[in-house]
């Protein structure tokens, strides 16, 4: 990581985080709700980025995990459970299921894996919709309560926003640690060259499953936030569409870049809102922008930024070693 990059990242980080902290005082409740949504989606996208960006496993099932997390949370909280254990439960449950779903990944080339996960997502959606006794079926589950921390209720938009932000910060720093730990190195090795990685003692099977499970777990946590955020869940949001949308977030942001999901989620969540002035045309505008973005910077926004920053500060040609 070149110095210029470090500086650039530092500045960007400082500005954006201070913005996020003061945001509630700049926006009406609507803006705060959108920002909360952004935070939640970013958590899910970070999970996918771990699976896809770092370990190189294409998963189209992230929405299913968000859904599972959301339904677990909605179902139990509306039945009087306290939020905190459930949030953990959602994460763990999805971790376990993700581990299971990871097994196909061990024997499939990436696009086949994409289709297996795609099928899985659709199956889960059907269960959400048809098992009315459990999920409320098409009617969904309404009046999902928002959590309270040590008597401090988070019903208000502000409180809940800061709560989402806190969780995001927590998750982000955990992942930051992870990708800089030997695990992160092993994930990259797995993505770049599994055969070589194996020959160096990297247990590719275990790391692949781990990447899947961790990504899924974060999806579950995002779901556990989504349910109390919207306070009503039904199957529609967790169909394949969201999985594709999360994939979009990761790739558009720059897959394999730590901050990719943050940017990607901005594009996927906020951009449509900014375009709403165009009335009926806003979704078209959104689609066009996404296409152009992919055509002109296929490596994602951060990939582009990376190129710009490093191309100006080119590494000097490396000298040959003196031979004794």
């Amino acid at each position, binding site marked *: 990581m070149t110095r210029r990059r470090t500086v650039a990242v530092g500045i960007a980080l400082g500005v954006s985080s201070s913005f996020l902290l003061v945001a509630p005082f700049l926006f009406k*409740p609507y803006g705060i709700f959108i920002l909360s949504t952004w935070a939640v989606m970013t958590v899910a996208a970070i999970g996918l980025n771990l699976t896809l960006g770092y370990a190189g496993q294409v998963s189209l099932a992230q929405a299913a995990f968000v859904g599972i997390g959301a339904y677990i949370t909605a179902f139990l909280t509306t039945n009087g459970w306290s939020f905190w254990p459930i949030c953990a439960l959602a994460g763990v449950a999805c971790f376990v299921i993700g581990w299971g779903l990871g097994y196909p990944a061990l024997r499939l080339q990436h696009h086949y894996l994409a289709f297996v996960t795609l099928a899985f997502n659709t199956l889960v959606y059907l269960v959400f919709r048809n098992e009315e006794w459990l999920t409320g079926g*098409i*009617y969904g589950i*309404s009046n999902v309560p928002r959590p309270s921390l040590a008597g401090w209720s988070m019903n208000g938009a502000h409180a809940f926003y800061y709560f989402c932000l806190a969780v995001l910060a927590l998750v982000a720093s955990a992942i930051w640690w992870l990708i800089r730990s030997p695990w992160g190195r092993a994930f990259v090795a797995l993505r770049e060259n599994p055969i070589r990685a194996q020959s160096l003692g990297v247990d590719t099977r275990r790391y692949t499953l781990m990447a899947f499970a961790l990504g899924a777990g974060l999806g579950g946590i995002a779901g556990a936030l*989504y349910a109390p955020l919207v306070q009503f869940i*039904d199957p*529609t*949001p967790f169909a394949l569409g969201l999985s594709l949308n999360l994939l979009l977030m990761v790739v558009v942001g720059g897959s394999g870049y730590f901050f990719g999901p943050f940017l990607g989620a901005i594009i996927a969540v906020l951009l449509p809102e900014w375009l709403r002035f165009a*009335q009926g045309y806003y979704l078209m505008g959104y689609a066009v922008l996404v296409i152009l973005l992919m055509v002109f910077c296929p490596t994602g926004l951060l990939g582009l930024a990376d190129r710009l920053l490093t191309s100006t500060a080119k590494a000097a040609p490396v000298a040959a070693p003196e031979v004794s």
Partner: protein
Amino acid sequence: MRLSKLVLAVLPLMFMSGLARADVKFAYVGEISGSIAVSGGNFRDGVILAVEELNAKGGILKQKIELTLYDTQTNPGVARAQMQKAIDGDPYVILGPIFSGNVKVTMQMLQQAEIPHIIGGEAAELTSLGDAYLFRTSFGQQIGMPKIANFIRDELKAKTVALIWVNNDFGKGGRDRLIKELGARDIKLAADVSSESGQVDFAADVVKLKAANADVVFVYSNEEECARIMREARKQGLKGPFVGDTTLLSQKTIELGGDAANGAMGHVGLTADAPLKQVEEFKARFQKRFNYVPDHNGLKGYTGVYAVKYVTEKIGKFERKALASTMHGLTITPEDEPGILIETSWDNNGEIDRISFLAEVVDGKQKITKILPKIRK
């Protein structure tokens, strides 16, 4: 083609720039895109038509209406965000949503904000959740379905019913309600076939319906699915008779179903094909403005706006609480307010009451065979 919407995009701006005096704000929050965009679009255009008419006549209490549109994408998460946005804009009333799920996710917020909302949702429980600011624009299914059940028992003398329904909140809600009502009238359910919204191939479903060979085939789905079902049925020689609700008998279904639609009959809560002068005129105006035939959602949006207009002028000021309280237990007749089209009353839960119709499709036209009186005189 709907290039007219391009104009629409700038309409609010025109109003704003138009006069210095603050206008009264209306908001439409509904399903402009997503799986039920058809209904949402109709409702929206009904609202737009009414607003444009009123503004042309100088607005309400001499104030022009400033209408803003919000698209829920038929997705509760988005719906909540958009409703919040609408509320932040501090509108006088909110029209929509149509998708009952979206109504449910937003009604709490609207209660807290104390903003009257004139909804298109027909799910039964909506009016039983104690929202003092919610008003329907068409029957809840708990009112429509008994009428159909009676019709099946009394007019058709049917003992068994084969039911096909679309698996979304509209279809599922109606299906659950109907099964209850049929049971109460000990009519047997011979088949219970769910189908997907947007499903195109009904060969399998119709085979199941045929196998049931019931006295009556009840079709409860969106217009185009109804049409596809009846085409497939005709193909496989399933005789019917087909009984259904508003959607089965709507002009759109007939147009799409071709002669396969002939002979379909049922109960119509609210229809753009009602044999009433005002409704026919409305239909003409609507078609002239948007170049397509409105379905009942068009009427719902249109009459919703006029109800608000009437009540507001009745109380003589823009006050939300008063609007809501006056509307409870109120009856509006076309004599009082032509824009209401059909005499309409609301009870204290915001549930609606109107005359409704028994209709049948006879050579490509919806023919009203009987007019059912309002439930409460």
